[in-house]
């Protein structure tokens, strides 16, 4: 299958403008960008996609082994950049995608030339002096939480979601139709996300980088954003007066403004 269909790639915006690749994090799909996207489109070319296993991606391409760590996702970003022949792109990664961007950028230096890391965390689990915000037990609790919440997913829905695109879509948008993910896939993605430790990879970032963090984020606290800022040479840090882990939803105007300012001035 063609890469653009496999990753459910959507392109829009100003074809002559700077190229932004918006990558969603754990828990949702490219719908996460629906509020900032229109703010970026007038000046930028915008590409969004779903990771394999999320949203409208090709679920048959999912592989528990490949996606059990972030390298598998980073390899997909590299492949996507090559297949779509993206050049000189600003990779905007939210949450775990920030780390995926950190891993992918050095592999394709002519394609990803700048990074925007939105509420990044290179390591969620506390380790020695490092405060990621969580213990290993906390992550196990999250996995239990995922087990008990099959939101928008059931055995009868799965074929519809996985069905070929030619099939007529259900007339009515289903409850919790965004961010659907099979519980099996979610479990693997959660482990890959929350047990990853990519602190050492921050040193490998040589491209201009913007870190966008929220003043009150229960997932990636400010110390973590500061840590990332300290470990990526020459990076810029913007702290939004926003709450939560998803400023593209809770503070779309400020998030878009920060991205656009960085694009214009870096």
């Amino acid at each position: 299958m063609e890469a653009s269909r496999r990753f459910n790639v959507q392109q829009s915006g100003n074809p002559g403008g700077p190229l932004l690749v918006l990558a969603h994090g754990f828990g949702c799909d490219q719908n996460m960008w629906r509020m900032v996207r229109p703010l970026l489109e007038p000046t930028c070319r915008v590409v969004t996609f779903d990771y394999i296993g999320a949203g409208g991606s090709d679920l048959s391409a999912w592989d528990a082994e490949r996606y059990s760590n972030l390298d598998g996702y980073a390899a997909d970003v590299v492949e996507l950049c090559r297949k779509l022949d993206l050049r000189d792109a600003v990779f905007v990664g939210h949450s775990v995608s920030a780390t995926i961007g950190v891993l992918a950028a050095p592999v394709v230096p002519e394609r990803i030339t700048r990074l925007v890391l939105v509420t990044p965390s290179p390591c969620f689990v506390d380790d020695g002096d490092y405060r990621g915000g969580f213990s290993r037990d906390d992550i196990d609790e999250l996995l239990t939480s995922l087990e008990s919440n099959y939101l928008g997913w059931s055995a009868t829905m799965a074929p519809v979601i996985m069905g070929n695109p030619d099939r007529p879509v259900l007339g009515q948008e289903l409850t919790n139709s965004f961010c659907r993910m099979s519980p099996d896939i979610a479990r693997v993605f959660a482990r890959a996300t929350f047990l990853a430790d990519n602190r050492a990879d921050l040193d490998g970032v040589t491209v201009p980088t913007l870190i966008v963090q929220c003043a009150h984020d229960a997932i990636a606290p400010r110390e973590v954003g500061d840590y990332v800022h300290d470990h990526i040479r020459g990076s810029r840090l913007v702290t939004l007066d926003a709450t939560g882990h998803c400023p593209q939803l809770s503070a779309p105007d400020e998030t878009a403004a920060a991205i656009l300012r960085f694009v214009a001035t870096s």
Partner: protein
Amino acid sequence: MTRAGRSQPDESTGQQAPADLYDRSPCGLLSTRADGTILTVNATLLGWLGREREELVGKCRFVDLLGVGDRIYHETHYAPLLSMQGSIAGVAAELRTAGGDRLPVLLASRLRSDAGVEVIHTAVVEARDRRGYERELLRARESADRERDRAQRLARVLQRSLLPPRLPTLPGMTTAAHYHPASADEVGGDFYDLFRLPDDRWGFFLGDVCGKGPEAAALTSLARYTLRSTATHEHDHAVLLRTVNAVLRQEEHDAAAAQCTVVFGSLRVDEGRSIVRLASAGHPPPLLIGADGTARYLDLLGGQVLGAIDNPTIAVATVELRFGDTLVLYSDGLTEARIDTGRNRYEEERLLAFATSLAPASPTAVVASIQSLLTQFGDGVDDDVAVLALGVPPASNDAASAR
């Protein structure tokens, strides 16, 4: 003077009802700002949490009431969905009470805009019983999955025990076989074997017992060992198959269950000219794929199924295998596979055309081609398929010129 009619709803209690419904509602209710800061909370929820209103309002965010795992879930799933959809319902979570207990609940939230300020209304339903029930369901599913794995493993092992682990090497001949199970859960009813007989002869058979599962496996075992043991002393193949028939007839089986079709053959390997004697009891006719690029079915029709009647008719034939010839035995799972999205069966004509397109071909090549054919059929293969092929390799140049 006391007010009259306390027991009757009057105007004043009617007016109080909404406030009472809010505060004493059977579900917990709270409202927060968009950032989660608690604005109001009802008495029911305070009671469940063992907290005072002053501790929570304006001081505490909704996520602070959740355990850590649920907090991550809230930030990564609940809040984004609520923001995108405007509402969300039926989400399981656990609240932390003042006493440190966990209270299983179901959450529903709705985003409201009050004079331009976004407010989130949340209802909390106690779900101790439901969560317990769900956990039971989950446990039951896990145990069903485990049982299924076990059953599949058993089926695999049993199936393997009914087939030769590997084919013996026949001097001057090549052989290949394949077994394609239609289901991972059930033992199929096809079987084959290739084995040494006294006087430098070799025996082989391929058959299909009626039915599937453990009963079919028991029957396969019976047929297979009767064939092998009888073959050591009985040279007349028709008599041999009638012996199997007699054994099956003795089986105290349900109705017509103890039945099978089979092709039995024996051969003595002779330099480039092996004479193969065959007998068939109601089984699809074997294919002969010739060194000359042709393919044909052997005339082995007219035999009757074993186990159905006393003294069934057995069809017999003799064929000579020369350099480059390959004899193919198969079960009807192959010819009865559904093709053209289920409209048609593969049928013997198509199999013959396929065999002709392969000719000449070694047993290994034939079996590999049939394997890929089966892969192509996919779900169209309803029944198990067994294939056994025996052939004489093409003559080397020296041998050919000596002929």
